[in-house]
């Protein structure tokens, strides 16, 4: 139950990737002029179209990257430096993924002025709070769509509108929402949008950055060495991974609604099974949050022991990307959780393959482990 960390590649995705590997496949360098190169370029362009269809945007607005972390770095650093002559004020939230937070921290060291917005206790950004901190020299706002720890969904339509009215670029880290929630880039006024394939049943190591052309957004590259991807992301394209991303996008386009209903039923089943545990707390907005994530805390239980005790159920404490450090989740701390509540938080996340039997087993393991750890706690 850790689908928010990554997902297994869909068999149809693997089949698409296999077609690109080895002799007889589209394995060539897609920049080569010869027949095999053109064949590989066709695969790349087809995948771009598949992703463009999922997001309802023109495929030529999509840049391939290695994943959302690189997309975030390219979008934020690239936009900040491209517009630095106009101003150096940038805005983001305390609850962003580390890939965004650490990029902004690096820019802070480069002399940019960063405003860190706090959400409400339910994790939602109040639009008026964003409007209040916009300045004449503000150049970029970066707010994620779905929070990777809590599932909180930000109103990116309203954020985009506000930014557009104020001639400020809006970047959105959509790693947790692309392929899971409907995103229509003709409707949302987002200038830059990051995504990664492995969160929606594609392969790891491939992602994309959407760059708007209405209005045209200029960003600087952060790596150099070739002319690929409009010189914004040089390097030989990994054709098999791109084919995998394209296939995952096509599958998501067709099955997104069914998947949404499925994960919602799984989340509701789990919450029904554990919500009567004394002093259990549901973290983040429970009304409009993404249904594929359920984040809960309990008192008198240490998080690492809770996770080990729940074995073989795979769950996460905070974000899997930073769960190797000992600090309590910065996201839950920003929501007002105490250090103890934050470190005892468990993120359950669900996907296509999660079954009711999986949920029932997780309920049993969670209840048993919480009861055991509480029974040996000095506080009990």
């Amino acid at each position, binding site marked *: 139950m850790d689908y928010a960390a990554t997902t297994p590649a869909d068999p149809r995705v693997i089949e698409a990737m296999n077609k690109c590997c080895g002799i007889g496949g589209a394995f060539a360098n897609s920049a080569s002029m010869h027949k095999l190169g053109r064949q590989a370029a066709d695969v790349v362009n087809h995948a771009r179209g598949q992703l463009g269809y999922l997001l309802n945007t023109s495929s030529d607005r999509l840049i391939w990257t290695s994943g959302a972390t690189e997309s975030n770095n390219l979008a934020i650093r690239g936009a900040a430096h491209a517009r630095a002559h106009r101003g150096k004020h940038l805005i983001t939230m305390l609850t962003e993924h580390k890939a965004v937070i650490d990029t902004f921290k690096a820019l802070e060291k480069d002399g940019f002025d960063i405003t860190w917005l706090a959400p409400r206790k339910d994790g939602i950004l109040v639009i008026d709070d964003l409007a209040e901190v916009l300045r004449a020299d503000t150049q970029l706002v970066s707010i994620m769509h779905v929070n990777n720890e809590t599932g909180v969904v930000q109103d990116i339509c309203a954020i985009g509108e506000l930014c557009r009215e104020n001639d400020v670029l809006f970047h959105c880290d959509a790693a947790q929402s692309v392929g899971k929630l409907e995103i229509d880039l003709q409707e949302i006024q987002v200038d830059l949008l990051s995504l990664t394939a492995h969160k929606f049943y594609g392969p790891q190591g491939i992602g994309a950055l959407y760059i708007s052309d209405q209005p045209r957004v200029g960003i600087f590259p952060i790596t150099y060495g070739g002319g690929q991807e409009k010189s914004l992301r040089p390097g030989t394209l990994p054709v098999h991974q791109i084919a995998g991303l394209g296939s995952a996008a096509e599958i998501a386009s067709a099955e997104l609604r069914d998947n949404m209903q499925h994960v919602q039923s799984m989340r509701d089943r789990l919450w029904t099974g554990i919500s009567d545990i004394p002093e259990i707390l549901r973290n983040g907005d429970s009304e409009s949050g993404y249904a594929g994530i359920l984040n809960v805390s309990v008192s008198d239980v*240490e998080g690492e*022991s809770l996770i*080990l005790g729940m074995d073989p159920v795979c769950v996460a404490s905070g974000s899997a990307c930073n*769960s*190797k450090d000992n600090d309590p989740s910065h996201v839950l701390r920003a929501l007002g959780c105490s*250090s103890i509540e934050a470190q005892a938080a468990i993120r359950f996340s669900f996907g296509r393959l999660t079954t009711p039997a999986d949920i029932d087993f997780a309920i049993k393991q969670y209840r048993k482990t919480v009861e055991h750890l509480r029974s*040996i706690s*000095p506080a009990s």
Partner: protein
Amino acid sequence: MQESRSYSEEVLELFSNLDHAGDLTIDSNQIFVAEVHESEEGARLVLFVCVNKGTIAQMRFRAWGCPHFLAGAEVVCREMEGVRVDAPYDAGVQYLMKRLDVPVQKTGKMLLIEDAAQQIIAAIQ
């Protein structure tokens, strides 16, 4: 901080069999308690010892902490139980770190167990 989150076989065994977690089950007028905590929101450990005829007849612990911490508390209880009160017990932090293959970032937690063991030895002697 990039610590490994893997556990040794012994830590997994101890964590699954915390036989000494909980309260003393035998009554005595020679019961000793040692209590330590890392910080307000950090690991906590309480050791309970029942002494009978100069021997540690039973030892139990209550703890709030990570798997290494719980395993360390269990090791101390298993090793001290049945030992004469005047026998030396030198299972310090280095012993626990090595035996349980504890990541260096958790040294403070093992020190806490050592402190609790020393407190209880001082009390019963």
